[in-house]
């Protein structure tokens, strides 16, 4: 492997500066996929704690029936901002950061295809979130109509313009990030890295990037219509002018449902990397895994109205969207069974990434099952807008997406930092997280089935016990993430234990052939690929 020396820089003005960039040059003017990936990941971690603190406010208010700590409007701001920050600030940038760091390493590329645009797509985000979070301090308050921004409620918000423009910025960032990832995967692979030899994580990102480019502009269109309805006298969502508030829901969820898969497909990819490593077996059914991701992505475009069953859709639409939604269980089932089959008969060890990956498989599947229940139109009339929905999407997003991101961090951080994290504290983090997250969200299923509505700061005393249990779980789950922070800080700056190049005994793939920590520039000359080094080198046709 000739990845070390000849970084071809072609720049007579800047070449000599290259090895001693100052702080500003290195982090703000970067064209390096590893530095930009790190920026994304650090930003995402910061947003994870900010969004998490909003969640703590919500659970504190809901600890007991009656009004406890905050005003109802502030409570609504918290539910809205928690969602916006976690979705657009924590989960999506974390996946883009992981993709930035790992995709070039996994396909044997020196960097992303369009490195400067890569830097721009990151640097838009801090400004977008400054704009979004600043609304909390505005007279009139921040957005409080839910992250879905349904009119006419959202049109009453004084901060609508700020939110709309923040969403535009996030959309621009996501689209540029996605274009970059597609161009990298299709154009920058090393010779011999055929499409069907790529790691599943790379495949999952290729398909996710396509979804992003397809639906983020639709979200931009939807929020633009909100903006003109509020400020420019249009009537898209006003029945008196011939419009329809439900139109917004259609356009929004045409974005929103693929968005759900944007937040889970890269997680599928991560789990498909980790399980083979610690089961010491190649992934079971590599091609089936790839095609399952593609099928899920396709289906995600024709199921959006299952978020709107209770809004008064024609019967034919409800039946179509119900069946189309249930169809998604088939490719998802393929994936779950293949993960289990990969573990079956493997010589498994249970390091922290593997623990999180196994928890993902089990708990994400629970979220999938409650999703199937919600897909049934008659049942959904009962579940709609209750805590059952809250429990469902937190199982797929927290124990799904977030657990996968945490698993990926433990899995790859030795490659990033060159040091091993503390396995003991990693396991402490895991067991605390996995126990308290269930204490947090499992009772919410019962609350929802009993009829407790979402997004309300007060509730019937009948719901008191489960809410208190849920809040205790919430506080402890939140506190458990401080262990994560401690492990990360320790690993990056204090850990004495050097990581080997391969890091994990069972790890396969190009990213494990470079030193740990990965040098600032890797694969400046295309690596020679040996199929037996790849995770999926011997795909049967």
């Amino acid at each position, binding site marked *: 492997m000739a990845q070390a020396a000849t970084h*071809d820089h072609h720049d007579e003005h800047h070449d000599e500066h290259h090895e001693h960039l100052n702080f500003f040059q290195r982090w703000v003017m970067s064209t390096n996929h590893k530095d930009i990936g790190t920026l994304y990941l650090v930003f995402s971690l910061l947003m994870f704690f900010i969004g998490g603190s909003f969640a703590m406010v919500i659970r504190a208010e809901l600890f007991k029936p009656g009004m406890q700590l905050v005003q109802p409007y502030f409570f609504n701001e918290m539910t809205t901002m928690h969602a916006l920050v976690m979705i657009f600030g924590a989960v999506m940038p974390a996946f883009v950061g992981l993709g930035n760091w790992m995709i070039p390493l996994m396909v044997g590329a020196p960097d992303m295809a369009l490195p400067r645009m890569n830097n721009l797509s990151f640097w838009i985000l801090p400004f977008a979130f400054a704009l979004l979070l600043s609304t909390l301090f505005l007279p009139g308050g921040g957005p409080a109509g839910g992250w879905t921004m349904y009119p006419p409620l959202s049109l009453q918000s004084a901060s609508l313009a700020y939110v709309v423009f923040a969403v535009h910025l996030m959309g621009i960032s996501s689209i540029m990030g996605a274009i970059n990832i597609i161009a990298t995967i299709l154009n920058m692979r090393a010779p011999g890295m055929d499409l069907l030899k790529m790691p599943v994580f790379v495949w999952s990102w290729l398909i996710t990037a396509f979804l992003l480019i397809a639906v983020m502009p639709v979200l931009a269109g939807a929020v633009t219509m909100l903006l003109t309805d509020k400020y420019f006298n249009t009537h898209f969502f006003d029945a008196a002018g011939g419009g329809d508030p439900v139109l917004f829901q259609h356009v929004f969820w045409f974005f929103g449902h693929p968005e759900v898969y944007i937040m889970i497909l890269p997680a599928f990819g991560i789990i498909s990397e980790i399980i083979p490593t610690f089961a010491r077996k190649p992934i079971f059914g590599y091609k089936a895994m790839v095609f399952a991701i593609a099928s899920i992505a396709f289906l995600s475009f024709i199921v959006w109205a299952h978020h709107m069953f209770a809004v008064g859709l024609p019967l034919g639409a409800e039946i179509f969207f119900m069946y189309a939604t249930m169809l998604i269980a088939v490719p998802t089932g393929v994936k779950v069974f293949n993960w289990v089959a990969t573990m079956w008969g493997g010589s498994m060890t249970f390091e922290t990434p593997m623990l999180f990956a196994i928890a993902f498989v089990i708990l994400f599947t629970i979220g999938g099952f409650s999703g199937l229940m919600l897909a049934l139109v008659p049942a959904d009339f009962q579940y709609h807008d209750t805590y059952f929905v809250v429990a469902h999407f937190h199982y797929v997003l927290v124990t799904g997406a977030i657990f996968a991101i945490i698993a990926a961090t433990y899995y790859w951080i030795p490659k990033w930092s060159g040091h091993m994290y503390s396995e003991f504290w990693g396991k402490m983090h895991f067991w605390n997280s996995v126990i308290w997250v269930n204490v947090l969200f499992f009772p919410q299923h019962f609350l929802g089935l009993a009829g407790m509505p979402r997004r309300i700061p007060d509730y019937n005393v009948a719901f008191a016990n489960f809410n208190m249990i849920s809040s205790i779980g919430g506080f402890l789950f939140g506190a458990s993430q401080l262990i994560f922070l401690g492990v990360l800080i320790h690993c990056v700056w204090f850990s004495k234990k050097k990581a080997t190049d391969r890091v994990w005994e069972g790890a396969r793939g190009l990213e494990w052939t470079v030193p740990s920590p990965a040098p600032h520039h890797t694969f400046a000359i295309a690596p020679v690929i040996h199929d037996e080094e790849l995770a999926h080198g011997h795909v049967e046709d």
Partner: protein
Amino acid sequence: MGQQHDIYYVPSKSQWPIVAAVVMFLTVFGAAHWLNAEPGEAGFGKTLLLIGFIGILGMFFGWFRSVIHESMAGRYNSQVDRSFRMGMMWFIFSEVMFFGAFFGALFYVRMFSVPWLGGYGHGVLTHQFLWSDYAASWGNGGGNGPGHVGGDFETVAPWGLPLINTLILLSSSVTVTIAHHALKAGHRGKVLLFLGVTVLLGAGFLFCQAHEYAEAYKELNLTLGSGVYGCTFFMLTGFHGLHVTLGTIMLAIIWLRVLAGHFSKEHHFGFEAVAWYWHFVDVVWLGLFMFVYIL
């Protein structure tokens, strides 16, 4: 793809991305502040918006200048060229989806919400209880909804200016293609002529559209506030007009670059990217002509 290169190219660090992020932020922050200002309140929104907008123009100028310099210096290999091509293709795809949102809104109001308000199909009760005297129709008389918002209006006749604009855009697609073939054949004079004609056609289109808008507001009483007819009409044609404006500016810049001798027979991706964009704008117009004006 991506397999016949010896050495990779990674561009040097650049200040333009962070400049771009800052000026984009200033623009939208200014715009939001302006929109949110109380009537009569001065505020700094407009100023900030203006600064941000000028900053965006400056950023594009600076960023593209440095890319053009690097390209002229021969730094970019065929792999970089492919990355640029993919970037432009997927950017145009994202634009298609953006227009898709507004076309989707148009189809929804025409097929569902307006007929439902008139009592058809799913909307029978809404009609009966809220607006039992509303007879659903599109265009004049019903297109501004049961509230008759914005008052009586007339629609723009498709076979006048819109037809002329269709012919203008279609011929501009032909002229830009002729210019492209001329560029590949190395006939610079012909390129300048036909590209120049394309720019003029784009400007002509914009002139006609401005005229059409003025007429709609003054004589037809068709405004952005004329219910869903007015807002779908102006938002769709307006966003298209913005894209034509952008495309015309890009074509004009390419014309200057041809004049400056930036393009060779083999390497002229800047030209091709703008030509793709122009064809995309053209295709969107055909959709508009069909669904907004004729049907």
